[in-house]
């Protein structure tokens, strides 16, 4: 029986004695190799791209991306982005995934630009990449690797830049759509200077486009379905009517899709768009515990809004946190997340067919979060595996490979959590440690 020794690196096919035993190993057909690949952690999968061209092609295939389990089974593919205290000059972003079994750290990076005081920032995730817009600074991040590319500045002198991000699978293109508003402009003033940037295109500049409908973007997120980006905007006389705008990546056409249903025209909450079974949907909360999900049906050129799903959460003892619907899983469950976290990171999954709730936690064993903590964004059902090259530059910054989780707001303790992705362990330290990492 041939013994494997980790210390000795043997050459391929050099030992004739064991060639017969070696034959057993070639018998593993490639589809069973895939069963093994699917269960590897991301780091390993990325490393094994260089094993052979067949492995590289397999790992990069859309089928593999769909069936990849990330090292454990039946995991919800929700992504949490945690960002640090905004008083930091360069915000750090940390990507991880809540898991039933163990914390899944993906990557972390330091944004190359200073966190602005007065502008808003826009995060969008589409097909495995995340775009972040801070004023005229626009980057696109790959959360799997923590690498990003910096886009050229949009053509504007203004500081208030709104951005959206989309992907079209037919042309395999990612595009960023930007528009600007005057910082101290009139609330009825429409957005302008609409422009598009196509990633990876030969022409590395922003293309100005026309928009015939004057509007002001009015949702802090958008959804991209079948190569069309949808977002909510105010239009019409006095910028009063809330409607859905659509940006078609194939034609670079930006126009009005439809008006929002009357019942949610005057919603008090922020609008949040989600993808429900391939359709644009808007969750609405008529009261604290009830959720209505409005789904937009586009059939044969006719558009109508249907209040497809209504569900109520039973008020739980000791749990009075406001939850908002942040998306759906590929199995049709709704993902709900709180707007702020204290003790632990978690999301809820609601299954409309079984009317059941379950809580998915990010494991942080032995750690007491003693302050109010805020995860900046929760992305839902995010396709995680995107290992292609996009002319990437930049890298992650932590010296020892740990990443730092810190709160947005501090109360008494200035605590910082260190997460070591190799040992999957958390430890809590005082904030002075920051200096080591800069």
């Amino acid at each position, binding site marked *: *029986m*041939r013994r*494997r020794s980790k210390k000795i*690196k*043997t050459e*391929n096919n050099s030992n004739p004695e064991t060639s017969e*035993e*070696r034959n*057993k*190993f*070639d*018998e*593993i057909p490639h589809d*069973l*190799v895939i*069963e*093994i*690949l*699917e*269960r*590897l*952690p991301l*780091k*390993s999968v*990325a*490393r*094994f*791209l*260089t*094993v*052979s*061209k*067949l*492995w*590289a092609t397999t790992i990069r295939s859309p089928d593999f991306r769909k069936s990849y389990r990330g*090292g454990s*089974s039946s995991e919800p593919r929700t992504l949490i982005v945690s960002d640090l205290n905004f008083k930091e000059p360069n915000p750090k972003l940390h990507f991880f995934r809540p898991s039933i079994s163990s914390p899944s750290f993906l*990557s972390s990076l330091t944004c190359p630009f200073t966190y602005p005081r007065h502008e808003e920032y826009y995060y969008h995730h589409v097909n495995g990449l995340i775009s972040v817009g801070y004023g005229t600074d626009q980057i696109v991040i790959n959360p799997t*690797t*923590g*690498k990003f590319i910096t886009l050229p500045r949009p053509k504007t002198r203004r500081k208030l830049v709104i951005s959206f991000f989309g992907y079209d699978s037919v042309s395999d293109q990612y595009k960023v759509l930007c528009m600007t508003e005057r910082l101290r402009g009139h609330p009825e003033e429409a957005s302008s200077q609409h422009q598009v940037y196509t990633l990876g295109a030969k022409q590395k500049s922003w293309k100005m486009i026309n928009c015939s409908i004057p509007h002001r973007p009015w949702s802090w997120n958008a959804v991209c379905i079948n190569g069309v980006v949808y977002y909510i905007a105010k239009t019409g006389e006095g910028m009063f009517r809330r409607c859905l705008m659509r940006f078609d990546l194939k034609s670079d056409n930006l126009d009005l899709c439809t008006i929002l249903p009357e019942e949610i025209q005057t919603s008090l909450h922020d609008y949040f768009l989600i993808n429900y079974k391939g359709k644009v949907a808007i969750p609405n909360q008529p009261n604290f515990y009830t959720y209505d999900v409005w789904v937009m049906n586009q059939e044969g050129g006719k558009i109508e809004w249907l209040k497809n799903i209504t569900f109520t959460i039973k008020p739980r003892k000791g749990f009075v946190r406001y939850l908002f619907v942040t998306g759906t899983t590929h199995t049709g469950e709704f993902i709900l997340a709180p707007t702020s976290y204290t003790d632990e990171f978690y999301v809820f999954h609601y299954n409309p067919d079984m009317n059941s709730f379950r809580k998915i936690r990010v494991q942080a064993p032995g750690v007491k979060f003693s302050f109010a903590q805020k995860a900046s964004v929760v992305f839902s059902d995010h396709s995680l595996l995107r*290992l292609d*090259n996009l002319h*990437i530059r930049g*890298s*992650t910054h932590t010296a020892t*490979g740990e990443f730092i989780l810190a709160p947005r707001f501090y109360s008494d303790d200035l605590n910082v959590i260190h997460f070591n992705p190799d040992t999957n362990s958390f430890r809590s330290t005082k904030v002075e440690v920051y200096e080591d990492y800069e």
Partner: protein
Amino acid sequence: MSSNKILLTSSDGESFEIDEAVARKFLIIVHMMEDNCAGEAIPLENVTGDILSKIIEYAKMHVNEPSEEDEDEEAKKNLDSWDAKFMEKLDLETIFKIILAANYLNFEGLLGFASQTVADYIKDKTPEEVREIFNIENDFTPEEEEEIRKENAWTFNE
């Protein structure tokens, strides 16, 4: 409880008599049983006796698979611990054979577990070591390999 016994014969002529409930873990047998008359031995052409005996051992322990919502933490922990010991004793070659056999028998539970075991075994290995294990030839040029390594440099951090 059904005390029906099923007779299985391995490719090298070894016979195994097992409970029907255990045999039903192998979906290929479920199909064969429907076609087969009761009492006849079921031949398994693609599995040798030594591997089949291991697979049966595993199947017997997992006959009463606890459901996901099962509150019995103790039982789950014991089963996990048994599973771990089961794999620990086996060398990689045997585990590969088990994967092939579990695939042939359509024994989903063991196929997944064995695949996970191999995944855990190789996850920290270098691509060169992995090529050795699977007997794969490196068809990248050094330049191509270097380019991919550069893109994914973060995975090679020590």
